[in-house]
């Protein structure tokens, strides 16, 4: 696998504030993840912690195409999706810290970020298990005759699990307004795609279900948004699902417990992909279009650094959950 030698993203005719907003969100995710990694190394964040560095354009471009009525589910690599959806950096960082002020009151952790008010329906820790859940939310949207769509993010390794195939078959069979977003970063943990999948052109899997599909440059936020726009339109107007393969790459290890390049890929490969960094590509495009100068970029850098620093301070200063919380939320009703 090598990076696509594509052109830098084309700046669309979106308003300046909107496209600079994309850049800011991607920079926020990057900074958040870097600081989360640091906090993990310092022992402030426990458990598993899977960073999204390198894939930011997928979450940001997708969320830009959605409305507040839409449902979102993601895998355990979901901090970036939650941020892009509008969950506060404070609530997510506090959750990573396991604090009472976290998005799940410290009961979920890094892999289980939820914000039901934003219809951000989790962070799920079993590979592929949330794909049927997303289809179920699409089922509910159609059942209630709402206009909502359901979007599911998963890695390419999840395409080999039965839940993926069962969910896609039923989504196509029942014409559910679902969008399945495969973030193909090349590796399922340390297993390269070619070692795990009988086909490399993953979007072809949609043909098995007579489902619309597209292959997208996941490093280009505009390409991502355009593809999701189309899928959203298909879901809202025709109630038909779509499978999108976003070609992307993670610069960091699978989780915090492995080195950036690991034993399964070379340092050179990681460096090569960094040449198509989604944030730099977008910043360069904005500069070329005279939408961003150095001062504005520096201001953004300072702005997101301050927001993440504030989130760290908030998380550090927040209390642990009361011990009485141990037994709450097991059941919705008193048992």
């Amino acid at each position, binding site marked *: 696998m090598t990076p696509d030698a594509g052109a830098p993203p084309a700046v669309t005719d979106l308003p300046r504030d909107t496209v600079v907003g994309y850049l800011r969100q991607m920079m926020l995710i990057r900074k958040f993840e870097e600081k989360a990694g640091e906090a993990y190394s310092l022992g402030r964040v426990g458990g598993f912690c899977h960073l999204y560095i390198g894939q930011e354009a997928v979450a940001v471009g997708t969320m830009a195409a959605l409305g507040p009525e839409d*449902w979102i*589910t993601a895998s355990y690599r979901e901090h970036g999706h939650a941020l892009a959806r509008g969950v506060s950096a404070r609530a997510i960082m506090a959750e990573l810290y396991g604090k009472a002020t*976290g*998005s*799940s*009151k*410290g*009961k*979920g952790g890094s892999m*289980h970020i*939820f*914000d*039901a008010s934003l219809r951000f*329906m*989790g962070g*799920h*820790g*079993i590979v592929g*298990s*949330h*794909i*049927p*859940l*997303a*289809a*179920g*939310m*699409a*089922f*509910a*949207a159609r*059942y*209630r005759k709402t206009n909502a769509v*359901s979007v599911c993010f998963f890695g390419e390794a999840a395409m080999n699990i*039965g*839940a993926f*195939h*069962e*969910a896609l*078959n*039923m989504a196509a*069979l029942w014409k559910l307004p679902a969008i399945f977003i495969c973030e193909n970063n090349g590796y399922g943990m340390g297993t390269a795609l070619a070692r795990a999948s009988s086909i490399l052109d993953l979007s072809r899997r949609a043909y098995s279900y007579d489902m619309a599909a597209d292959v997208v440059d996941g490093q280009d936020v505009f390409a991502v948004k355009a593809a999701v726009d189309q899928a959203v339109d298909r879901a809202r107007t025709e109630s038909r699902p779509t499978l999108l393969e976003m070609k992307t790459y993670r610069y960091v290890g699978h989780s915090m417990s492995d080195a950036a390049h690991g034993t399964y890929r070379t340092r050179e490969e990681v460096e090569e992909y960094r040449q198509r960094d989604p944030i730099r590509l977008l910043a360069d495009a904005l500069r070329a279009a005279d939408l961003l100068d150095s001062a504005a970029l520096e201001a953004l850098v300072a702005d997101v650094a301050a927001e993440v620093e504030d989130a760290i301070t908030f998380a550090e200063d927040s209390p642990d959950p009361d011990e009485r919380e141990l037994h*709450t*939320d*097991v*059941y*919705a*009703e008193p*048992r």
Partner: protein
Amino acid sequence: MAIMTYRDALNQALREEMARDPDVFLMGEEVAEYDGAYKVSRGLLKEFGPARVVDTPIAELGFTGIGVGAAMAGLRPVIEFMTWNFALLAIDQIVNSAAKMHYMSGGQVQCPIVFRGPGGSALQLAAQHSQAFESWYAHIPGLVVVMPATPADAKGLLKSAIRSDDPVVFIEGEMLYNQKGEVPDEEYLTPLGVAEVKRSGTDVTLVCHSKSVSVALKAADQLAEEDIAAEVLDLRTITPLDREAILASVARTNRAVVVEEGWSFAGVGAQVVDLIQREGFDLLDAPVLRVTGADVPMPYNKFLERAAKIDPAGVVAAAKQVLYLS
């Protein structure tokens, strides 16, 4: 009171709840056009249409997950497993998704869903189609496990399960579908988590659930012929377990036998025995005994199968043993 089968009582519960609440829908294999593999959903497609009575492909993991996702979005799905044997394919969604969603979202997301279908031992269906899984689900915090033994309880408990905001594992007795009993004419709900004394007695408590209730009742008849008054306590709900009812009954009888169709190791009865010895030690005049299915895969041959299953004779023998009469 009407006399009806356990099957028809379940059918009434589904019909009433679907008529009452448009968010309730039924999904599973053969529930619609085939009218249900065991005919529990008979007539529902005709009454409520294909949007609410949904036939699925044979894909337990997928349609169970779709049900859980629909519940997370606010609907009240009833997911039918043709039998609980096939639910093993879906157990990731029941255990890792449904049971944990409320907790790991910090209480933000509810999962009001019922997983239902027949379980327990059947008749000469051999190892893969004749087994009891209630202790597996009862082990999982976040799940409610319900096992009705009579038509009246089947109806009242299913209605309560559908109205519950928690995920409910509702295991029907495969051998109970044709059993008839009185069912109240007026609408009623049977509360979850409440056991019921199905027969009063003073000499020994027979703790049971689902199919084992009828076994215990037969055993109680036989014991009565020998002037032994057995109390038959039907748990009805495995989790939450009605601890008070169990201890109150043992306080009356001072002796107990726990009867279940499942295997012995870490079975439901083990939990009941734990409760009684821990919180009712001073009530006991004898060690509590258990009657369970044999610890083997269910054999096909009918004589071997009979030997593997619980029966009234085994319960009578255990009751006499705790009464020191054998």
